[in-house]
């Protein structure tokens, strides 16, 4: 039977939910066994999290100091050294996976399939092209390892309830020193990550200023939501880049997306079209976002947000 190796994404202390979503995709290829490898430094707790996911056979850990930061040039040779026994090597199509997986594929001398959104059979997959404006069905070659990234917005996280074996793996791979990690500047704070949050509150140019975004933050905190923004709001300097949702930002699929003052440019809609329920609040009844919203309200967001606060028991 064929086997899948999933490269775990983590931040050094916790497993990223993208790993459980990648697992959900891997569960549909009809493989005999799915293993997860955690490349990290001091990664026992992360391995334990991975082992608790239902459907995982083994969790392999490669615990070494060089793996403290997620540098693709350092991780790829280790992943490639482990890939020999596997017919599939999957990673999430987050910036982590996009950076790393092609490097693994090139080391193995095989092509890569990016952004799997659906598995049709063991070799046939659907993926978006042209920013999701077309969906292509692709057949992968059967006689070689398939390295692929999984579009996390297309999958729900696999459930817990497993008890996989955790094994320490040693890999014989020369690691380069030409790439060095300096730092991560994070603007996110304690709010849920956009790509895994179940509710996302988002603001556009209509919010008007960085100060005005505060009312979105406080609403988001009340709902336990992540906060996103349109490209217009990012370009206007209201919020940092990593909050941008859309074709050139993050593609997300929360259960509930609430858009305040976002007109709904195509490039933004591309980023949210897999959301469960889309709510749009905009002063302009002609705003294109109403064409795809499940619930629309033509109103001033500065009146709606305080009223929402009140009615939700603020």
């Amino acid at each position: 039977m064929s086997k899948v190796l999933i490269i775990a994404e983590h931040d050094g202390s916790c497993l990223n939910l993208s790993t459980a979503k990648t697992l959900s995709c891997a569960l549909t290829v009809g493989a005999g066994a799915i293993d997860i490898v955690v490349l990290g430094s001091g990664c026992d707790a992360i391995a334990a999290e991975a082992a608790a996911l239902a459907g995982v056979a083994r969790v392999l850990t490669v615990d070494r100091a060089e793996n403290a930061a997620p540098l693709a040039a350092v991780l790829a040779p280790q992943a490639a050294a482990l890939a020999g026994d596997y017919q599939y090597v999957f990673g999430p199509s987050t910036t982590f996976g996009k950076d790393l997986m092609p490097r693994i594929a090139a080391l193995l001398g095989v092509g890569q399939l990016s952004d799997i959104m659906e598995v049709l059979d063991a070799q046939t997959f659907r993926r978006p092209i042209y920013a999701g404006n077309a969906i292509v069905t692709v057949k992968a070659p059967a006689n070689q390892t398939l390295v692929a990234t999984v579009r996390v917005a297309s999958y729900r996280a696999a459930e817990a309830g497993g008890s996989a074996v955790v094994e320490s793996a040693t890999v014989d791979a020369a690691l380069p020193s030409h790439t060095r990690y300096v730092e991560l500047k994070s603007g996110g704070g304690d709010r849920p990550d956009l790509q895994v949050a179940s509710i996302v509150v988002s603001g556009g140019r209509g919010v008007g200023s960085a100060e005005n975004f505060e009312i979105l933050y406080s609403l988001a905190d009340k709902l336990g939501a992540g906060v996103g923004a349109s490209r217009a709001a990012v370009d206007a300097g209201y919020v940092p880049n990593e909050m941008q949702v859309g074709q050139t930002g993050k593609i997300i699929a929360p259960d509930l997306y609430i858009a305040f003052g976002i007109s709904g440019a195509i490039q933004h809609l591309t980023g949210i079209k897999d959301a469960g329920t889309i709510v749009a609040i905009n002063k302009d009844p002609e705003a294109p976002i109403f064409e795809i919203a499940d619930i629309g309200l033509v109103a001033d967001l500065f009146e709606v947000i305080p009223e929402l606060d009140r009615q939700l028991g603020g």
Partner: protein
Amino acid sequence: MDKVMVCLKRVVDYNVRVRVKPDNSGVVTEGVKMSINPFDEIALEEALRMREQGNASEVFVVSIGSSDCQQQLRTGLAMGADRAILIETDAEIEPLAAARIFLQLIEKEQPGLVILGKQAIDDDNSQTPQMLATLWDRPQATFASKLELIDGKAIVTREVDAGLEVIEVDLPAVLSVDLRLNEPRYVKLPDIMKAKKKPFETLAIADLDVDIAPQFETVTVEAPESRQRGEMVADVAGLIGALKEKGFSL
């Protein structure tokens, strides 16, 4: 400093609303405006700024594709690149094959830095820069939003999901650029005239010793399922009611 190589891909212009062909064999490209992949344009702008700041001796642009790609390379020359190389082929080139082709040029040209867009807006693969760096056995700095060059090293700020990551890479290296690295310059008419006199080399793909056989087979291309317009509510109470009906308890 060294030469900088910039790879340009000819793609359907980002303003064009892409339509799937009725026979589901691909998207309509006949009679459609084609342009340099916008991320590659940012890559070229960065290389030109390097040269203008004295950090690069020469900037050359490279493309793989049909003879139509001359247009995009000419635009690159008009933007300010010193010379252009077209690897001419009508074959479908997958990212691994593109990386193999670019590697051959690297071996011949010995650039100090290779800059590409983080992805092409047609296939959205985001693979070629990483594969090229790997085959070249050199560092990669993907999704770059800031570049500083110091003593044979590049300090690169990368746009990652968690925020901005800073890494340091030894040169030569491969840089893949994100949207916010810079704002590409506009091409002026006199520059288009000047560009016609710049060196333009065309190589047949058969002249390179590269395996370009595709590994993946396109079965069908379809339009995505579209979302439907939902209900309009009159006020906040209506909104909360509609959310409750959909099973949300806020």
